Structure formats: C-alpha cells, structure tokens
C-alpha cells in the first residue's frame, strides 16, 4: 500500500482566501493511501520545503501530493527538493489550486469542493507513480554541416574555431554556393567574391575542417550527440590526391557544355573546375557530357594529364561517420520562372534574364568580363526594365511569400547599369519597395538619384517586336497602362529552397513547410534549431534572406552546436515512452506516428506459449523520444506507454474525478 503525504499550500492568501485549505487537508486524510495531510503558508519557501522533508521522514511517506500553484511554476523546485530525500523526485504530483482554482473562482464553497476534487485526482495518480531516473548519453564531439555555401562555411568556421571537428558536405564540386557568383553586395558594394573566397580558402586550410565536395548525405540514424551519417561521394573521375590543379586537361577537352556557374551564359568543358577561385581547385568530369564516359571516345584528358590523375573507372563510394550535431545549410535556388510565366515569353527571349544571370553578366570574371550586353546579339542595352516579384507574392503562379532580397539587389542592378552604361535608362516595376536593413533605404534613395525610374505596378506581358522587348505594365500611381520598349529585361526571380532539401530533411527526420522551407523549432525563440534535438539550421534553407542575415544565422547555429558539444554527456528526460515487448504485436503503427523517428521495429527473443520465438517488436530510442505520447493512443494493446503519464495513471485520475 502506498503511503501518500498531502501538502496544501496557502500561498499567502492567494489560495487560502478562496479555498478553505484546512478543509481540503482534512478531507485528503480520508483519501485512499493518504497517511498524512497538512497545510502551510508558503510550501515553496525554505521552511516549507524543510517541513515536507521532515514529514517524509516522520510518516515514512513514499510519495507526495502538493496542492499549490501550477506545476509549470514549481514542479522542478519540488523535484529538486525531493532529490535530497529518500523519495524519488518523480513520486510527486501537484494539484493546481492557484491558477486553475483559487484565482479563477469566487464562491468559497464551490472552490473548496473543486480543490478537494483536484487533490483527489492527484492522489489517485500519484498512487500509481513509479520511480523514474534520468539517464545520460555520451556526446560525440564532431559536427556535420550540410551545404558549403556562405551559411555552411560560416557555421563550420565558427564551430571549428571552438576546437571541434567539422565536416562540410557539399553536393557541387566546389564550396562557395551562390555568394561567389554575385558581383557586388548591397548596400556597401563590396566585391562579393573578394569577401567570400577568403572564407572558402579558410575552410580548406582549417585544421578542424574536412571538406567533402561532390558528396551527399545518404543516410542518417541515431540521435542528439550520437548521429551516424553515411556520406555518398559521387564519382569525380579525377584522383584529387594526385591532381595538382594545373588545369591542362580543361584547356584540351573538346566537349563544351552550358556552364552552371555562369547561369547558362557561357560554356565550360566536360572536365572542369567550376570557376577560377573554386575550392578545392581541382577538376571533376561531368559524366553526362564526357565523350569517354558516354561514347568511349576521346580520352584526351588522360593523355595530357602529366601525373595520371584521371580515372575513368572512378565509382560512387560511401563512408560512415559519427557526429554529435548536424547543421543543415542547403540554401536556395531560383524558381523556374519560365514555367510559371508564359506571359513573359516563357523563356523564349534570350534578353529576358534573371537577376542571377545579370550578376554573371556584370561580373568582371564573368563571361563578358563585366560588360553588360544583350545575350542575344551582344549589343549594349540602353533601355533596361527590371521586373520585381517574379514568382514571389504570387500564390497562383508562384510562391505566396516575399523573397526578401530582391528589392535590394534590383536597386543594386539599376545602380550598376546606370553607372556602367552612359545614357542608359532603367525602369523598375515594383509593388512595394522593402528595405528593412541598415543602410538599405539610403541605398534605394541613391538608386533613384542615379536616375532609376520606379513604376508601381506588376508587368502583365513582355513580347517582342523587332529587336525590342515590349513591356506592358500599369503605373498604378497614375492609374494608366504604360508600355516600355526595352532592350533587356531583368526578372527579380523568387528564391525557393534547394531541390535537395526535401530529401535531406526526410533523411534527418526534420519538418519542412508547404513551400519546402525547413521549419525552425520556434520562430522567435529557437530560430536556428529544428524540432529534432541536435539538428540545427542556418541560411536560406529556412527562408529567403540576404547575406548578412545568412551569416548571422550561421554563427548562431555554430554557437548552439558548440554549446552542445562542449559537454561530455547529456541528461535525458525520463518521461518518455517504453514498450512491453511481451504484449507488443509488432504492428508498427506507433513507428508511423512518431514525429521524432524514435521508434524502430527490432527483433526480440520472446515466447509463444512454450516455444522460443523471434518476435518483431517496437523499441523506443531514449535519446530521440520527447515524450509526446502520440504513440500511446494509437496502440490498441496499450503496450507502449508513457512514463509519468501512463494509461493507468490517467485512468485513475479520471476515476477519481467522479468518486
């Protein structure tokens, strides 16, 4: 038989003024299992706690109920208090007599009756409590960063500087991401490559950082502090251990295909270093383009390579490593505007380009060496139209969200055109100009001073007559349709998450929203954490943002990672699910509803009558389970249960309600 002690707190007059606490204590004494009940002015105070401890000794209590304020207030306090006694901290229930009784009622009689009822429920529950113990899990002091753009590089560098090993997995042949493609950064107009390439070099040179380019995450298992990650390395066909990056192979390769780095504005060979400052600065072979690999012809690169680094037989390989924390930084791509907007020509006009293509056009290391010319005929455009919100703020054709960076880079593009092309005219069609950042509004002002014409209205149609692109919009401030005959049109195309994100998120077991952005644990207070402990996020995988915000998030995620990895081990909550393997039928429904992938089906040596058999049963991973209890309600047998909130305990609470 349980020996329960009941302690009713006056909370000064907070409870006692409405609830007859003495009567509550008196009637508690008659409840089954209760051997002692009393009241006290302030139960949470030092003397109050001392009184409880004494009573435990004196009446040989093995569990207690405290009738006081909300358990959200002092449950931890009282658990801590119990740590010094012979009672396990979890042999405690709190009846919420303040927030949910005294403070919300006025009728003393009825409130007292309710208080008795609440204590009765807690008594019934505590009678079925079991001692629970927290356990600890060790932490592997290494971090994995998925994505080698500016966000991933920043996070990796900061983690590495704290002294932890970091691996960067990048699917492309070089790290650097989108930032190295850009020409200048707003609002300061520093050279984008000049500030991002040193980071790339630093990543490569840092003793704590391992770069894994042309690699993808294949499989993730485990939990916070103990992730096991299988990394797939794509075939590069070049032995990077031997290769010196001399680049001879590139110059001799006869095949030319569209350059991804130059956004389709130039060609590159089939064996290529993506761009001049690439890290690692070693080539890979594009297997879809290479003549040797597609048709078994050519083979020139092998012949010219002075050290024999070419290996046409290279294959995909896998490595498995352990990490304590993971940062996802998979970045963005631009939406496929051509699919979405047939009214803008659907991609058939060469002189309708995206903002990213313009970055390459205006970049001194780009295909035109920084001369702004029309891709169709190489002539310098005089009239340029910039169309904002292409694919963003358009729930029907594109995305409903604001893409955040476009207002500023469009202003930057206008400034660059007006600066580089004498007597040029730039018309910017916009709906709203959003410049919330330091120095941004001033930059927008300057762009207008430079001569950019801002026209408020969305462009309805772009078509071609002769060599001119006819752009039709409305000047909605005047209220009349306007037409611009343009030489070139730049579309400020919306960002969307990298196409790989859904796959990566699925492997990591983290949530993405309807637009495929990775969901943070809390939008305000946990912005760089995911729902899964030990997995963090940064950069544009979470939502559109500009470079300063991206870098800030990278560092923030790194701080979170460091805060985790600086411990040798961590405590886990004991209030988690557990399985009775003898009752479990192995249907696996609990596995399906678990949001944390904490449940797996495992083999279990059980019995079937007199026979020894191998059953398949559910097993809870204590590191992953967060104790929501969703699995409990789906289990028909009731063999998966939640410590601290067992079926038994809740049923007893329900029963007590109506006694």
């Amino acid at each position: 038989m349980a020996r329960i002690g009941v302690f009713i707190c006056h909370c000064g007059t907070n409870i006692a003024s409405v609830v007859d606490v003495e009567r509550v204590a008196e009637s508690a004494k008659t409840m089954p299992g209760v051997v002692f009940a009393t009241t006290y002015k302030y139960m949470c105070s030092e003397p109050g706690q001392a009184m409880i401890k004494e009573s435990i000794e004196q009446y040989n209590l093995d569990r207690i109920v405290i009738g006081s304020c909300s358990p959200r207030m002092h449950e931890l306090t009282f658990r801590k208090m119990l740590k010094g006694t012979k009672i396990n901290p979890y042999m405690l229930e709190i009846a919420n007599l303040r927030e949910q009784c005294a403070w919300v009622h006025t009728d003393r009689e009825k409130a007292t009756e309710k208080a008795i009822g609440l204590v009765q429920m807690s008594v019934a529950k505590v009678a079925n409590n079991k001692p629970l113990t927290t356990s600890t899990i060790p932490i592997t002091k290494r971090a994995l960063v998925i994505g080698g753009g500016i966000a991933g590089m920043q996070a990796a560098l900061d983690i590495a500087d704290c002294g932890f090993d970091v691996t960067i997995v990048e699917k492309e042949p070089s790290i650097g991401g989108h930032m190295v493609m850009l020409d200048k950064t707003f609002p300061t107009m520093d050279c984008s490559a000049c500030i991002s390439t040193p980071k790339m070099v630093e990543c490569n040179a840092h003793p704590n950082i391992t770069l894994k380019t042309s690699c993808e995450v294949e499989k993730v298992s485990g939990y916070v502090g103990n992730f096991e990650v299988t990394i797939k390395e794509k075939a590069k066909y070049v032995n990077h251990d031997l290769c010196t990056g001399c680049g001879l192979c590139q110059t001799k390769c006869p095949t030319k295909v569209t350059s991804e780095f130059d956004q389709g504005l130039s060609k590159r060979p089939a064996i290529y270093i993506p761009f001049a400052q690439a890290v690692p600065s070693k080539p890979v072979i594009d297997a879809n383009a290479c003549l040797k690999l597609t048709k078994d012809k050519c083979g020139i690169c092998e012949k010219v390579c002075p050290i024999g680094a070419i290996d046409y037989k290279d294959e995909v390989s896998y490595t498995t490593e352990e990490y304590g924390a993971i940062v996802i930084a998979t970045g963005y791509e631009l939406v496929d505007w051509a699919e979405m907007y047939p009214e803008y020509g659907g991609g058939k006009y060469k002189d309708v380009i995206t903002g990213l293509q313009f970055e390459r056009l205006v970049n001194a290391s780009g295909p035109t060496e920084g001369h702004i010319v029309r891709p169709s005929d190489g002539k310098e455009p005089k009239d340029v139209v910039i169309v904002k919100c292409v694919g963003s703020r358009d729930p029907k054709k594109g995305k409903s969200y604001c893409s955040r960076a476009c207002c500023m880079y469009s202003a930057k593009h206008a400034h660059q055109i007006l600066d580089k092309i004498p007597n040029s005219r730039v018309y910017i069609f916009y709906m709203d100009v959003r410049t919330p950042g330091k120095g941004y509004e001033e930059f927008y002002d300057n762009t207008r001073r430079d001569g950019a014409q801002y026209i408020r209205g969305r462009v309805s149609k772009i078509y071609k007559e002769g060599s001119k692109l006819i752009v039709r919009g409305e000047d909605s401030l005047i209220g009349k349709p306007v037409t611009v005959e343009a030489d070139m049109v730049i579309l400020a195309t919306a960002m969307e998450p990298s196409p790989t994100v859904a796959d990566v998120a699925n492997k990591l077991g983290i949530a993405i929203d309807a637009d495929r952005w990775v969901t943070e644990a809390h939008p305000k207070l946990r912005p760089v954490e995911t729902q899964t402990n030990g997995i963090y996020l940064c950069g544009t995988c979470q939502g559109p943002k500009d470079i300063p915000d991206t870098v800030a998030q990278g560092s923030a995620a790194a701080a979170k990672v460091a805060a985790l990895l600086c411990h040798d081990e961590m405590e886990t909550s004991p209030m988690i699910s557990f399985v009775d393997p003898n009752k479990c039928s192995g249907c696996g429904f609990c596995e399906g509803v678990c949001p944390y992938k904490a449940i797996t089906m495992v083999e279990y040596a059980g019995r079937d009558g007199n026979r020894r058999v191998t059953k398949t049963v559910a097993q809870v991973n204590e590191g992953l389970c967060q104790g929501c209890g969703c699995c409990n309600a789906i289990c028909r047998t009731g063999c998966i249960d939640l410590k601290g909130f067992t079926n038994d305990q809740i049923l007893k609470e329900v029963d007590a309600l109506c006694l």
Partner: protein
Amino acid sequence: MSVKKDNNWEPVILAFCCNWCTYTGADLAGLNRMKYPENVRVIRVPCSSRVNPQFIIRAFQKGADGVLVCGCHPGDCHYATGNYYTRRRFMLMKRLLEYNGIDPKRFQAKWISGSEAAKFRDTVIQVSAEIKALGPNTKFVGTYAPQNAVEGGQE
C-alpha cells in the same frame, strides 16, 4: 430523457489539456484573474495526441457530464505533428459517440493556445452552460472499479 430541473445541480466536466498550449492558457487565465465555473477539472497531458479516446469512454462511464479535449492549434504543436492525429481521432470519435446517443455537446474538442486565456475561459463558460442545460449524463454510466484502484504501481 427527462432533464431534472435541479437548480443546485452542477455538472462534472473533465478537460484534457496539453501541457504546452492549453494548460498554459488555463494558467494564464488564472494569472489574469478571469472567472469561470468551478465544474471543470483539468487533467494535464503532454500533448493532445496522448489522449486515448478510451479515456473519454471511461469518463462517461464514471459519470462525467461532459468531456473536453484541448490542444495547440494545428501547426503549433510542441511536438510538431501530434495534434493532426488528435484532430482525426476526435473528429471520428465525436461522431461515433453521437451515433451512440451521446449529445455532441457533451464531448467537445478545441484548439486553445498558450496565449488564449480568454478563449479558455469562454470555452469553459460555454461548455458548462451547454451541459447544464442538458442536465446530468445518464448514458454509459456504470459502477465498474478496477481491481487495483488504490494500491497501484505494484504490477
């Protein structure tokens, strides 16, 4: 069913509240000294998805006059997806109970966030009034008491 016109009669209403939203909302109602009827008793659960519909059946069996299940709004679940399952479960359970003769007002579910103290109060006032109007529940009520009702924890 004839409703007893006993003005002193108070219903017993059981509310399952998730720890992160509704229980917090209920605490906030207290903090703001909002007033609502005394006949509601809250059982704290980690998540509305912890609530097994069998608990509801048990509550009616034990003579509860009404049952309320409350959780975070869909999309706001502390455990990401729990309340989506809650939603399906109790949409079906509500209809099943109704089909078996239980007035739909006696079993209700509501999304109440941690900041919606007023919504918690209004819900309790409304449910309480509705059930008062219906009178005591006589359906599914029984006398069953499990064997180990008090000793507990000895399994």
